[in-house]
C-alpha cells in the first residue's frame, strides 16, 4: 500500500485488503497501523450527537473544516483539546473538550477529613496554590466558628499577594510566548523564581505550599524569608517595570492585542466571569472590596479597571494589579502584629451540621468553596469553584471571526490553568 492510496472508511468492515500481499492480516501489515481508529483524537466524535448544540457544531457547511488543537498543544497551558471549526483561516466556532486532567478532587475531599482535604486543594492551580487553599480553609473555619489570630491573617495576605505577583509574572511570560516572543518568559521566570524560593523558605515547598491550616498558618515568619523578601522588595518595582516595558512598548505586541477577543461588561456578567477578566470590561468587582474577607478592609489599595475588554486591556490590568499587590505587601510588613499564628483547635474536627460558602479574589478571579457538613469529621459535600473553568467557556464567545493563530492569544489573555479547569 502506498501513501497515495485513499484512506478507507473508519469501520473495520469497510477496509479493502486487495493489495495487501503476503502481509495481509499479520501485525506487519502496514495498513493495520495506518488505518487504526484514532478514537478520541478525531475531531468528530465517533457517536451520534447527544445535544442540540453538539449536532449544530459538528455539522459542516460549505467550505468549513474541523481542526484539533491539542490535547498536547504547548499553548493550551495544560492538557486541553479544542475542536476548531474553520472557514479558511477564520474561526467559525469552537468546542473545548475537557477532562484530560480530571482527578475528582471534590470526591477525594469528601473522603478525607477536614485537615487532609486541604492538601488536595493545592494542585488545583499549581501557579497560585495559596489561593486554592484559602477558600477551602475559610469555609471550614466558618463551619467551625473559628476565630483566626490576626497575625495569621496578615501572614496569609502577605504570602498570598506574593503568590499573586508570581502568578501574574508567569502570565506575562506565557502570553508573550503564545504570541511568539521568547524573551519575556525568561525574564518573568527570574521574577517568579525569586518569589517561589522566598515562599519555599516560608512554607517548605516551592509550588504546592500546603501552608494554610484551619485556624491559622503552618509556621511563623522566619529570618530567611524576611531577608529574601527585603532584598526582593528593594528591586521588585524596577524589575516588574522592566518586564512590562519589554511588551508595552512593543508595537507588534500592542497592535496585535488591541481589539482582539473583546467582550463587553454585560456579556462578561452573563458569562459569570470574575477577576481581572471582568474588571477589564469596566465592572469594578473585586471580592476583596465587594465582599471583604480577612484583613483586606484594613488595607489601602485600589481596584484598577479598564473599559476596552480586549486582550490588551486584560494584560495591562494584570500589570496594574501587580503594583497594588506590592502596596499591600508593603502595608502588611509595616502593620504586622505580634501574637500566635494558630488558633487552638482539637485534632479531630467535627463541625456542627451546616453549610458554608467562602469566596476569595485570586489572580484569575473568584475562587470559592462551598462545604456542607453533616456532623462527622469529613466534609459531606465539597464544591470547588474555579475561575479558569468559567473563563475558558468565554473563549467560544470571543473567538468567532478571528484567525486560528489568535486562539492562543485569546486563551492566554484569559489565563486559564487546566489543573483548575479539570479539577
Amino acid at each position, binding site marked *: 500500500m502506498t501513501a497515495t492510496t485513499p484512506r478507507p472508511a473508519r469501520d473495520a468492515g469497510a477496509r479493502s485488503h486487495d493489495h495487501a500481499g503476503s502481509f495481509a492480516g499479520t501485525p506487519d501489515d502496514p495498513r493495520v497501523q495506518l488505518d487504526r481508529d484514532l478514537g478520541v483524537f478525531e475531531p468528530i466524535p465517533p*457517536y451520534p450527537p*447527544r*445535544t442540540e448544540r453538539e449536532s449544530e457544531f459538528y455539522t459542516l457547511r460549505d467550505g468549513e473544516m474541523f481542526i484539533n488543537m491539542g490535547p498536547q498543544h504547548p499553548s493550551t497551558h495544560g492538557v486541553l483539546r479544542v475542536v476548531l471549526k474553520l472557514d479558511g483561516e477564520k474561526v467559525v466556532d469552537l468546542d473545548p473538550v475537557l477532562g484530560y486532567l480530571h482527578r475528582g478532587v471534590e470526591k477525594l475531599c469528601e*473522603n478525607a477529613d477536614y485537615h487532609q482535604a486541604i492538601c488536595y486543594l493545592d494542585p488545583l492551580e499549581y501557579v497560585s496554590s495559596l489561593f486554592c487553599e484559602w477558600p477551602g480553609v475559610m469555609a471550614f473555619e466558618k463551619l467551625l466558628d473559628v476565630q483566626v489570630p490576626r497575625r495569621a491573617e496578615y501572614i496569609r495576605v502577605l504570602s498570598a499577594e506574593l503568590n499573586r505577583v508570581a502568578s501574574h509574572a508567569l502570565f506575562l511570560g506565557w502570553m508573550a510566548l503564545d504570541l511568539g516572543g521568547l524573551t519575556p518568559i525568561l525574564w518573568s521566570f527570574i521574577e517568579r523564581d525569586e518569589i517561589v524560593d522566598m515562599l519555599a523558605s516560608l512554607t517548605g515547598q516551592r509550588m504546592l505550599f500546603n501552608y494554610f491550616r484551619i485556624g491559622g498558618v503552618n509556621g511563623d515568619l522566619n529570618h530567611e524569608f524576611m531577608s529574601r523578601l527585603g532584598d526582593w522588595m528593594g528591586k521588585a518595582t524596577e524589575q516588574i517595570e522592566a518586564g512590562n516595558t519589554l511588551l508595552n512598548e512593543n508595537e507588534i505586541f500592542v497592535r496585535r492585542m488591541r481589539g482582539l477577543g473583546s467582550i463587553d461588561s454585560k456579556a462578561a456578567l452573563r*458569562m459569570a466571569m470574575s477577576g481581572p477578566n471582568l474588571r477589564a470590561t469596566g465592572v469594578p468587582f473585586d471580592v476583596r472590596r465587594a*465582599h471583604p474577607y480577612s484583613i483586606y478592609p484594613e488595607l489601602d489599595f485600589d481596584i484598577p479597571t479598564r473599559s476596552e475588554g480586549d486582550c490588551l486591556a486584560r494584560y495591562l490590568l494584570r500589570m496594574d494589579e501587580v503594583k497594588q499587590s506590592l502596596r499591600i505587601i508593603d502595608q502588611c510588613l509595616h502593620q504586622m502584629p505580634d501574637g500566635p499564628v494558630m488558633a487552638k483547635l482539637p485534632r479531630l474536627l467535627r463541625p456542627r451540621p451546616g453549610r458554608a460558602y467562602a*469566596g476569595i479574589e485570586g489572580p484569575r478571579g*473568584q475562587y470559592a468553596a462551598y462545604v456542607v457538613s453533616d456532623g462527622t469529621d469529613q466534609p459531606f459535600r465539597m464544591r470547588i469553584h474555579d475561575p479558569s*473553568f468559567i473563563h475558558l467557556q468565554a473563549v467560544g464567545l470571543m473567538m468567532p471571526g478571528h484567525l486560528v493563530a489568535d486562539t492562543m492569544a485569546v486563551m492566554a489573555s484569559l489565563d486559564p490553568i487546566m489543573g483548575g479547569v479539570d479539577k
Partner: protein
Amino acid sequence: MDRAFKARLERRFADQLTGPVRQRHDETEIRIGPGDVTQVITALHDEPEFRFEFLADLAGVDTGEVMQVVYHLWSITTADWLRVIADGLSRDDPRVPSVTFMWKGAEWMEREAYDMFGITFEGNRDLRRIYLPPDYQSFPLRKDFLLPDDAARSPGGGVRPMERTHIPQNAPATAPVRRVGG
C-alpha cells in the same frame, strides 16, 4: 448578617419559600422548589431591590434522600452572599430548569452538575458530560458512588447513614455494588 435583607426576601418570596430564611456568618439562605427556579432567579436578577447580577457558583448536592441545586449569588444591594437552594429533586430523575437564559456562563457549571450527579437541567442546550468520557455510566459525586479503598479506611466508613447501597437507575446491570465498612 443583614436582617433587613431577610425581611425583604420573606416579603417578596412568601409564596415560593419552602422553608425559613436562614442566616449565618455572611450568608443568607433560601429554599425553593425546583419549579420556581426560573421565576425566583428572574426576580432576584431584575428587580431593583435585589439586583443579583453576579452568579458566584452553581453546585449540585446529593443529600442521600434528595438532590439539590445550589446557586450562590452576589449583589451590590446587600453585604451577604445569597444562597438559593432548589430543594427536593427526586434522586431517580432529578430535573430542574436551567438558568442559562440568565447567565450563559452557567452552561458549563450545569454540565458539570449533570456529569457528577445526573441532574437534568431543562433548557440547557449542551447538556452532555464535560469531564468524564461519553460512554461513562454512573454519576460519581452521588452518595451511593463509593470509593471502596478510601472510604473503608476512613473513620466515617460504614457509619454514615448516607453510605448505604443503592444502585443508580442508569447503572449498568453488571456494575458491582460494594458495601463498605461495618
